[in-house]
């Protein structure tokens, strides 16, 4: 919540910026210790996953939020990054390349995949684009699941285990790191690494948003024909959106593989793509703080329900009436519906979108639905 208010401040006052940054920096730095000791390491692990999902959501936000291209196969790029890491740093091929080689390579390869998958879809719009990207996502997953024969590349459904943990310099993040008599537990170390990369991605996204490229993306989203007539090469700019978005996914995927130590195709199914899309839309499409909020919420919400659905029932009724696991997913589904009904532009829409929803005529909105 600190990050919310401080990010808001970023927009209003120049002097506030420094103060907010410092406060936010301190908050983010001590967060793992507060969470780790207060709520337990499982919440720290959840937080780490939340950071990965933030990266994914920010990547998808470029494609869906900025450029307005509905992509239902985004998780494929996460998979590409994860498998690249798994193949280059595990006993599977006996390769153990360092992380500073693999992560950029993962970003690059995912970016290339993004362009390759984006190219045939350029003429498609809306729902047709959605189904084709969905198809691409499934194609990637199914290939990962089956490329164990005739040549064993991905080890098929068995997945790849024994993946090297992330090493930085002489340190492995898999074990507690001792520095100057201070011990940093493994989960904390991963947190700082993920946080650093997530912040980097936020930075890149903000810079892109406020650039010639970012404006071109939004222009395409708003009106492709007008954008063309303004001299925007929509083909290249769309491909760039796919590439940039995919490369963020590739980074997150690599980190995921190193963090988990195991990858298998089942982590990259359609539901995951859908979840990331929900983060973007629920948070507030096209608005970076909103997307971050969406990523955090949708990662921790099911976990809150997980921790709460049993005990709360016991507290209220004295016993468990409804199966807590079914209830958990039920509440999650309801949350998606309710949030969208009350905040159709997302929880934290960009200022422009918010204005759009303040008592606007239906005339405007009809245009939206074209």
């Amino acid at each position, binding site marked *: 919540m600190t990050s919310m208010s401080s990010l808001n401040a970023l927009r209003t006052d120049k002097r506030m910026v420094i103060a907010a940054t410092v406060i936010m920096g301190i908050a983010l730095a001590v967060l793992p210790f507060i969470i780790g000791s207060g709520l337990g*390491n499982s919440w720290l692990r959840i937080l780490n*996953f939340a950071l990965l999902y933030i990266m994914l959501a920010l990547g998808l936000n470029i494609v869906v939020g900025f450029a307005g291209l509905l992509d239902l196969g985004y998780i494929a790029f996460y998979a590409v990054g994860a498998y690249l890491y798994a193949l280059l740093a595990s006993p599977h091929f006996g390769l153990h390349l360092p992380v500073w080689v693999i992560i950029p390579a993962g970003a690059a390869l995912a970016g290339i995949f993004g362009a390759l998958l984006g190219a045939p879809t350029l003429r498609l719009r809306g729902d047709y684009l959605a189904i084709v990207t969905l198809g691409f996502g499934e194609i990637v997953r199914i290939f990962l699941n089956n490329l164990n024969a005739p040549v064993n590349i991905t080890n098929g459904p*068995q997945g790849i*285990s024994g993946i090297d943990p992330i090493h930085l310099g002489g340190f492995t993040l898999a074990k507690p790191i001792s520095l100057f008599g201070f011990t940093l537990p493994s989960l904390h170390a991963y947190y700082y690494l993920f946080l650093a990369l997530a912040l980097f991605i936020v930075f890149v996204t903000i810079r892109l948003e406020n650039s010639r490229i970012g404006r071109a993306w939004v222009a395409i989203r708003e009106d492709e024909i007008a954008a063309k007539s303004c001299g925007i090469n929509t083909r290249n700019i769309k491909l760039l959106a796919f590439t940039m978005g995919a490369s963020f996914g590739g980074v997150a995927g690599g980190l995921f593989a190193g963090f*988990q130590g195991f990858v*298998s195709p089942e982590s990259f199914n359609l539901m995951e793509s859908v979840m990331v899309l929900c983060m973007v839309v629920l948070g507030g499409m096209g608005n970076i703080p909103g997307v971050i909020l969406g990523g955090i919420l949708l990662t921790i919400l099911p976990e809150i329900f997980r921790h709460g659905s049993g005990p709360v029932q016991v507290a209220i009724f004295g016993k468990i009436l409804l199966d807590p696991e079914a209830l958990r*997913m039920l509440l999650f589904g309801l949350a998606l519906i309710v949030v969208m009904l009350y905040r159709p532009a997302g929880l934290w829409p960009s200022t422009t979108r918010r204005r759009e929803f303040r008592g606007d005529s239906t005339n405007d909105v009809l245009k939206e639905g074209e």
Partner: protein
Amino acid sequence: MSYSRIPSMTLAIAAAVAMIGCGQKEEPKPAPAPAPVAAPVPPPPPPKPEVTVQLGHVAPLTGPQAHLGKDNENGARMAIDELNAKGLEIGGAKIKFVLVPEDDQADPKQGTIVAQKLVDAKVSGVIGHLNSGTTIPASKIYFDAGIPQISGSATNPKYTQQGFATAFRVMANDVQQGKVLGGFATKQLAGKTVAIIDDRTAYGQGLADEFEKAVVASGGKVVTREFTTDKATDFAAILTKIKSKKPDVLFYGGMDAQGGPMTKQMKSLGLKAKFLTGDGGCTPEYIKLAGAASEGQFCSLPGVPLDQMPGGKAFGDAFNAKYGQIQLYAPYVYDAVMVMVDSMKRANSVESAKFLPEIGKSDYQGVTTKIQFDDKGDLKGGAISLYQVKDGKWEYRETIGGSVVAEVKEAVKEAATAVKDAAVATGDAAKDAMKDAAKEGSKVAAEVSKDAAAAKAAVEKK
């Protein structure tokens, strides 16, 4: 090349033989897992009346495999209820077991999150997870925390191959089961030609791969290998293709939800092959889903049938009365809990670090089989029982493997082959070497057969 293999082979065989021969005596085991977070040794519990011991259980409780997950959980719950009713005393304190059930949605990421949650909750041990895909990444977290884990259903060999001293399973792995099934298909079912379908999950594919190897090794021919998914309902296309290859046996590596409809469609397409499947299809659900088409089909389950085991029938009846029809792995999960608690009793402690070494030494008569672990944490022996549908019910046919004799026989055969290979491979270029090899080889062979004979004798005596 092969020359250098001889000594190591010998060693391995000798070790195997010694192990088998010595029965209960334990081979020196590497020190148990470090337990970095374990609390310092507590003083023997003073007159405290009751100690609560938490056991974690993880399986998918939502999503397509939820029915199996709930079944597993019920198995664990049943064990814990029984234990609590009995009122165990360990380390001088009365023990109350509490089950901490978690849902991993069959998702590896969720698997690690709930694993961490269980570690945070300071559970003494973990039963699960159900799927190999979630079990493998989670096992690292348990290992790091020094918490023992026994899975009743994860069959991927990788799980116990990671070198984690905390990882055990009370279920035959894919290799063990696939081997038996392959032999059964070619020998008992007299299948000269075999078609294989798997569902492209870690379980189905692993089992089918091992099955295929075993079929080929025993002289059968795999005429076609087809694939489906664990969400499919329509198999007409692949079954039609298989029909064109006219196999004697059709093996399916996958679950009942696909196996049942598959059998039904097989019949309506006029495919006459015998249907054989592994534990995933060895359920009453299979018969319900396949209907009349299930008659005469085969499946396998690790272990020995419930009603042949002491207490097995009672377990089955009690479970059915309490939770309804056993789906699949509930008895294995039940055994997993019991093995863990048995180890606590022997260690006289509920501290993970204390009873962990005892798990490896288990020799427990479970409701599914006699449970002993090898040095990796895999079920030793691995008896596999085969069943056939008769009058709409699975009926026990026979149990294959599980006998030490069979293992010895195999080891001897392998050693002899190795020796022969070595002799041949050295070739003309090194006649001396060959001579030596031959000499040594025959010596080894003699030794091996002597050991084997001794082992056999020991076994028979037992």
